[in-house]
């Protein structure tokens, strides 16, 4: 293809002038990109962004997971009645669901909080994973692989074992636990980042993950040591550690809800910046950004989300890598798409995984972390294969 100078020579000269944007109309109605398809040619290309159909698909997935999660269990309830009962929770609505008082109690007091917790935890883990992948420009980043979850795990174990959280026992999560988890997760991600950066300028995506593995192993050793010294709390720590959504009702949901909102708002507001960061720090700087400042803020937000998820449900691995990558493959590689969809599909994914975890070996429950790891292991190999093709 050659340049044809004549073609553009007659354009008005001022159009690329720096002064121009000052005179630009200030209307910023968001939907501009979707108007005005070019005649014939199948429309002008649109900038990457969340398409309505994907948003709808995400919301539908959440609703399906909600109804399925509440319906299925030791006592299966008809999904239609469950849906009616869920709608009844909205103010000013009353539908006849045909459920008995006892069944209604199962829905609202036992299963619903558990499913909602699954949605929140899954959404947080997937969102944090997508965010880490953007911040570190590393397709393999995940709260679990970066050692973030292990850091939170060590901190929570310390709190339980050293008795600071003993008051909460099994009746719910003490407020100290998410805070300890946050401190632990930030410490771990800082350690991983420093260790990964020690590889110098020519470090590959794998360097960071190796650093994360080393940090995880180190922190896990610390955790084991703590448990040895405080064997009376082993039972309590392990039931939490393996990942569980069995909750003490709405208490846990309410405890992590503020963290969920904060993380989601901060990360989703920066979704375009993550796209800019993907061209590298130098270019992001010359485009007017503070890459390091954005990076720290986003790491803090994603670590806060991870910490909240870990405090509520223990170590649930691979959600942060399975979900964002599936979204990337199906819906597009812009973080404006990946982040919101990861949150929705991550929630739906974990809520549905929980259904498997508590029905597959009923009446026993498989720890949900075991189920996600069984799915995630093979998936991770798949990501490694595609990542090698795309990113090197």
């Amino acid at each position: 293809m050659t340049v044809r100078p004549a073609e553009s020579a007659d354009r008005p000269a001022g159009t690329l002038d720096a002064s121009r944007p000052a005179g630009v109309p200030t209307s910023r109605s968001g939907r501009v990109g979707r108007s005005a398809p070019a005649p014939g040619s199948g429309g002008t290309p649109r900038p990457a962004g969340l398409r309505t159909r994907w948003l709808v698909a995400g919301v539908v997935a959440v609703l399906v997971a909600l109804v399925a999660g509440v319906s299925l269990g030791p006592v299966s309830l008809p999904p239609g009645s469950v849906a009616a009962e869920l709608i009844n929770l909205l103010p000013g609505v009353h539908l006849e669901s045909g459920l008995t008082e006892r069944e209604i109690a199962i829905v609202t007091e036992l299963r619903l909080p558990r499913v909602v917790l699954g949605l929140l935890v899954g959404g947080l883990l997937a969102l944090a994973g997508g965010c880490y992948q953007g911040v570190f420009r590393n397709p393999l980043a995940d709260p679990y692989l970066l050692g973030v979850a292990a850091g939170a795990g060590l901190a929570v174990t310390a709190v339980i074992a050293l008795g600071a959280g003993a008051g909460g026992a099994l009746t719910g999560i003490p407020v100290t636990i998410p805070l300890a988890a946050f401190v632990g997760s930030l410490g771990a991600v800082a350690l991983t980042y420093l260790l990964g950066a020690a590889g110098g300028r020519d470090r590959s995506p794998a360097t960071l993950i190796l650093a994360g593995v080393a940090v995880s192993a180190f922190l896990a050793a610390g955790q084991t040591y703590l448990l040895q010294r405080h064997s009376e709390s082993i039972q309590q720590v392990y039931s939490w550690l393996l990942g569980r959504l069995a909750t003490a009702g709405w208490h846990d949901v309410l405890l992590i809800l503020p963290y969920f909102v904060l993380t989601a708002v901060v990360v989703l507001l920066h979704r375009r910046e993550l796209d800019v960061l993907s061209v590298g720090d130098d270019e992001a700087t010359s485009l007017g950004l503070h890459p390091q400042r954005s990076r720290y803020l986003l790491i803090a937000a994603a670590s806060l989300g991870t910490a909240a998820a870990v405090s509520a449900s223990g170590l649930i691995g691979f959600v942060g890598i399975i979900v964002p990558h599936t979204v990337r493959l199906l819906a597009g590689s812009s973080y404006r798409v990946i982040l919101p969809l990861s949150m929705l599909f991550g929630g739906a994914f974990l809520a549905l995984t929980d259904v498997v975890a508590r029905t597959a070996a009923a009446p026993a429950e498989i720890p949900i972390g075991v189920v996600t790891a069984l799915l995630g292991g093979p998936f991770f190999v798949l990501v490694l294969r595609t990542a090698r093709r795309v990113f090197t």
Partner: protein
Amino acid sequence: MSVPAVEVRELRVTLGGAPILAGVDLSVAVGEWVTVIGPNGAGKSTLLRAVGGLLSAPGAVSLFGTPIQSLRRRDRARVVATVAQSPVVPAGMSVLDYVLLGRTPYIPPLGRESAADLAAVHEVLDRLDLGGFGRRELATLSGGERQRVFLARALAQGATLLLLDEPTSALDIGHQQEVLELVDQLRREHGLTVLATMHDLSVAGEYADRMVLLADGRVAAVGPPQEVLTETLLARHYRARVRVIPGEHGPLVVPVRPR
């Protein structure tokens, strides 16, 4: 005399203890094309980074009369745009989205692009003959096409000062000429100022109004190409044996094998 687009005074940069630039002065007039040449490690890229604001050099660099450190990042990005030597090509990103990144200084920090931003991008794409490429994935383009997309992103920034770090090093001679002709044409049409670094001396001399020869972190020579591209200067600073032949648009530098 009017305010120069770039004014560098006594620029000193030390990286990891080693002096890279040891007092460099440089002035680029508005609308001028200045190319920096020099042997490997002379500090060409560092000079460009300082002018682009990627290295802090307080008091040493002014753009259009304003000291660079007193410009806010976003404002600086509206004044000076850089095309790096080998820009990162994000996986899966379309040409349209890549060029749209150039509008970042105009998009509110947490907002999204406006119709005006999109219009500016489409205009730049058309101007660079990239109209049909909007949907294409950047990673699938050829070297010459990519270089035009990188240029498009810089132009979408609306900056009148363009910094080009080795803009043609990845291209064959046909595409080198194509890209440089394009830059020159844009410069004439829009009054852009160009500060570039280049390795190919003949090509550099054909397009530059003035050249700066950088050696060991200092300016060894500055002036029109025929004053900088001389057998003596090149022999001294590149330790190269060359023959300089007068050409139509500037001296042609031909390496000859030492006896």
